[in-house]
């Protein structure tokens, strides 16, 4: 069994309401459960995340936590606190924190990178997909476009 390094770009669709702006409070879900294609290739397959980069085009100045799940279960609604059930929490396999203190302003956005990671992810039995969800710290964040967060994952994927 061999593994190969692969880059996966995930651009979740953020919930934005121009008429009635949504203010994301401290700990609120910004990305409900979303597929992260490419992190595993096989049924019940595994991948090892070696590095990640989070691009914050709004420059929120907030810490963003990304959760990895091995099944498409409800993590919580966008703009609300996480509300995953006890049973579904079993499918959370891990998480990473992108601290705003490590964010680098590169002009039109901020980038936070995490290197030297060894985070194993896995798809549920009889599936090939891994999922992510994300929360934001602080409070008072109002996204103005649906594409203001981009996550890039470098993972060793089981061939």
């Amino acid at each position, binding site marked *: 069994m061999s593994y190969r390094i692969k880059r996966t770009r995930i651009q979740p669709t953020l919930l934005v309401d121009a008429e009635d702006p949504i203010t994301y409070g401290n700990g609120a879900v910004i990305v409900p459960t979303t597929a992260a294609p490419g992190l595993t290739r096989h049924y019940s397959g595994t991948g090892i995340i070696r590095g990640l980069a989070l691009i914050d085009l709004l420059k929120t100045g907030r810490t963003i936590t990304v*959760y990895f799940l091995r099944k498409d279960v409800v993590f919580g609604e966008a703009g609300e606190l996480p509300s995953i059930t006890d049973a579904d929490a*079993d499918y959370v*396999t891990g998480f990473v924190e992108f601290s705003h203190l490590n964010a680098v302003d590169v002009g039109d956005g901020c980038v936070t990178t995490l290197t030297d990671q060894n985070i194993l992810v896995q798809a549920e039995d009889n599936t090939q997909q891994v999922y992510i969800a994300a929360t934001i710290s602080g409070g008072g964040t109002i996204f103005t476009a649906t594409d203001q967060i981009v996550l890039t994952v470098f993972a060793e994927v089981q061939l």
Partner: protein
Amino acid sequence: MANNYTRATFTPVLSTTPAYSGGDILFTTMPVYGAIRHPGGQAIIRGITLHDKDDIGAGITLYFMRSNVSMGTINAAPTMASADVDKIVSSLVIETTDYKDLGGVQVAFKGDLGVPIQSLVDTRTIYVAAVIDSTNKTYTASGIVIDLWLEDEL
């Protein structure tokens, strides 16, 4: 050397009463079957995910052993025999800061680990027990589920 990455999940049986004191055995020695790919082999724990359905978020130290030896009585301080202490291969600390509160449940995660484990000759089983580091905590019997993320040789 080609490596293999797997997940081993187990649900320990916890004491429900009285409340645990800091330093008590959270759960007694239990097997994790098939954690090692080859009988008598070794593996490395690369990560751990602890699902705390009782929403407690306690500090917990896990002890990994290569045979089924007693650490003591659940919900009491450890009383391990000196000969049995040799069977402890490694330990792993979950701190209160490792948890994220997801509503009615908390999940602790530690990645980028390198914790060695080993099974006895002719078995693929490791043994694990845990001590709680936080005081005055009450769990349900199956309130914790633990995933070990393992790397071993093909």
